């Protein structure tokens, strides 16, 4: 089942007198459980595409179907509900709330969704354990290393068990080793069935994805799926990948800290 279907997407920005076509004639379909890298130089429209996918922005034309439902026509509140339930965001600069502890940051989406405190506490405790952060629960972001911060952010993005995880340059503010860890963590989540879409300009990270979308001047220049779809067996899904995208029941060791030097304070 295609979790994301974009058809004829256009996005136009007006900057003074000039008109910028940030996205033109975009038709993309992404299957559930896919691992997609959106690549391209800056200004190519990859961030605009990610914002559209995350329902933070609206296209000027075209339709966007998320899990078969047209989400471009939804009201702002309905879109907020979709963001809450179906989409997880991971940002380059982490975007943790500085006055909240790691546990509170992870619980934030559940608090916004109105989930009872007891249920929140239970799921946050589980997530802290899964992501190897149980010693850091009461630390505020400024007391965490970059890698730990991004792991808190990923735990937060997945706590509502979304269908799609959107990562915007998730390793951009991290050193190479820590970035490796974060990418590995995202890949484990993907292997469990979560659709993963990573925006990056780093070819090393981009080529790890099973599918690359190359953007240039607001157009899709190259879609590696055109090759892959013909021979699906080239890239078999990971051993943990289940059928239900929702059913993220993580196994603790895989998500935990992989190697000792990964945390760079």
């Amino acid at each position, binding site marked *: 089942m295609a979790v994301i279907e974009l058809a004829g997407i256009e996005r136009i920005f007006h900057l003074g007198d000039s008109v910028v076509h940030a996205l033109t004639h975009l038709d993309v379909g992404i299957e559930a459980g896919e691992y997609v890298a959106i690549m391209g130089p800056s200004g190519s429209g990859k961030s605009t595409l990610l914002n559209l996918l995350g329902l933070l922005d609206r296209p000027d034309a075209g339709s966007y179907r998320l899990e078969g439902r047209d989400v471009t026509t939804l009201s702002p509140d309905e879109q907020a509900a979709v963001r*809450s339930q179906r989409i997880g965001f991971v*940002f380059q600069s982490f*975007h943790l*709330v500085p*006055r909240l502890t790691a546990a509170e940051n992870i619980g934030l*989406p559940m608090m916004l969704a*109105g989930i009872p*405190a007891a249920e929140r506490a239970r799921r946050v405790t589980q997530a802290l354990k899964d992501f190897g952060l149980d010693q850091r629960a009461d630390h505020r972001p400024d007391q965490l290393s970059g890698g730990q911060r991004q792991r808190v952010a990923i735990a937060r993005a997945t706590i509502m068990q979304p269908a799609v995880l959107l990562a915007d340059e998730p390793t951009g503010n991290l050193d190479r080793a820590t970035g490796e860890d974060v990418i590995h963590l995202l890949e484990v989540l993907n292997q469990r069935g979560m659709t993963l879409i990573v925006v990056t300009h780093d070819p090393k990270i981009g080529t790890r994805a099973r599918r690359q979308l190359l953007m240039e001047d607001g157009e899709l220049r190259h879609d590696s799926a055109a090759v892959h779809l013909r021979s699906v067996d080239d890239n078999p899904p990971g051993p943990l990948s289940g059928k239900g995208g929702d059913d993220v029941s993580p196994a603790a060791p895989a998500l935990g800290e992989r190697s000792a030097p990964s945390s760079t304070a």
Partner: protein
Amino acid sequence: MRTADVLRFARDAAAGYPLRTALSVLAMAIGVAAVVVLTSLGDGARRYVVEQFSALGSNLVIVLPGRSATGGFSPANAVTTTPRDLTVDDAAALIRLPAVRRVAPVVAGNSEINANGRLRETVVAGTVASYRDIRSFKMAQGTFLPEADWNRGALVAVIGAKIQEEIFAGRPAVGELIRLGDRRLRIVGVLKSVGQGLGMNTDELVFVPVSVAQSLFNTHTLFRVLVEARSRDDLEAVKREVTALLKARHGGEEDVTVITQDAVLATFDKLLRALTAAVAGIAAISLAVAGILVMNVMLVAVTQRTAEIGLLKALGARGATIRDAFLAEAAMISLAGALTGYGLGLFGAFVLRQMYPVFPAYPPDWAVIAALATALGTGLLFGIMPARRAARLDPVQALMKH
């Protein structure tokens, strides 16, 4: 988002910037404290005046001989030209009226007091024992005029504090003899000093039994009759009954004037209430200023937390949720300010009372309620604009700010 979570989130957000929050709480507190203290002053002044009047006897009805009406020509005026005397018997008759508690006839005149080798001009008031209760006088020495037949008073006198000081140089005066005109009277009491009481200085008076004064001044008419009603509510009834009874006793002619102090008191009361309200209004301006400060603080908060607002939206917060969180924060700052200010104001009023014990500086309830409501109201009102601005932020733009 649950209400408890909204409140907790807002509280943590306010606590996250302690200096900024403390300053806006302080501004709001000063506004509320100003209202509480200033209205305490204003209302204290009002109560002070009312109490002074009450000391004089606010249940008092005063009967004057003669008609002060601008009546024109009535048949009664044509028949009799001179009013009848207001007599001691008239006054005695008033006691039997149901709404009347006490009656004191008063005769007044000037005389010379001669004692201890000194001589001075003085005002002599002829009255009866109940006068002391009506005016709530306190005795410094001895007793007031004795209870006796109003028409056969003993040859005794009660003197004011200043007379005692001037004639007897502060020595105990009870038992001393004085000469008033051609009478020799024995002093039975000295009044405690009460100071100026609405135009008449009681400290310079000499009180004698009404019959003594009447023979001293060779008159039958009374200067005044003071009538005390049983309660404030009975004032109108007393006024009516007194007028009716005296009219009947004077052969159907209404030749006395009956006045109450209530009208004067009501005017003062109204005046000072208006003054208190005006002062409260001026103080409320500082509340408006505090409200604008809260708005400013909240606008700064929205700017400072733009990235956070973008994040909350990305995490699925609805615009209304973000608006509520910021409104709750503004309300909390205002509430904290209002309560702190209330405490400060009460303390200020307490200090005032300690400094001026005669001055009952308590804030009136309406002012306290109005101040707290205005503080909360302005805080919320001025919080709406920043909160709406936060709710409307474009998440993409907001997330880019860091």
